[in-house]
């Protein structure tokens, strides 16, 4: 099964990014494929807050990208609206068109957070 994943919450204000992260790891471990992870709305903060020991709920997305090759795209407009510019390694800036593309290539679309 191919999944497109959208993450919509900040990792420091909600547990949903961590839930999404664990879902992705479990899906990959079961032999499924993740077409793309798209970070939207408050979820864009995932691209700007690195994993750190003080905040264990913040997922290590960079490691996921480096170890599994998962494509991590944050919405450039949503990030600009929130004044964010320098993403962590492994993240790519993109537009909603990449989310549409992910939806069309996936068998299932799953959204974490609101």
């Amino acid at each position, binding site marked *: 099964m191919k999944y497109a994943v959208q993450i919509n919450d900040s990792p420091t204000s909600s547990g949903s990014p961590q839930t999404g992260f664990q879902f992705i790891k479990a899906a990959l471990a079961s032999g499924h494929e993740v077409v793309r992870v798209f970070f939207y709305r408050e979820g864009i903060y995932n691209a700007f807050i690195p994993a750190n020991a003080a905040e264990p709920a913040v997922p290590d997305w960079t490691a996921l990208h480096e170890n599994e090759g998962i494509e991590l795209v944050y919405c450039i407009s949503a990030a600009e609206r929130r004044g964010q510019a320098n993403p962590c390694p492994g993240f790519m800036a993109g537009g909603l068109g990449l989310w*549409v593309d992910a939806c*069309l290539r996936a068998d299932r679309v799953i*959204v974490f957070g609101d």
Partner: protein
Amino acid sequence: MNTRQFLFIFGRSPRGGVIDREMLDQMLTLAAFDQAITVLFVDEGVYRLTRDMDATASILKPSELLDLLTFYDIDSVWVEEESLMQRDMSLDDACLSVRIMPRAAVAGLLARHDVILGD
């Protein structure tokens, strides 16, 4: 390009600001890529369509929202009957094109769509 059936569910009161804007951006981008889009208003989401909605500058009036949907060829627009009745709401005059669906039919609507997104 292949197409999917997308269902957008507005289930919350309009919150205004960027969150509202980004919900619409996502829906209209999918429409711009010629995807089939259905919209359903349920629960607190029906406040977007009501006559007395207290629209602030950052929230679209019912007429503005429906004009936007029409402009993007989104013509399958539904509101759940029980959500309206429970709130004793009447639809804004601009909502002539919005069709009313009983709660019992909502599961069938969900089943007919490939991707379901919420607000």
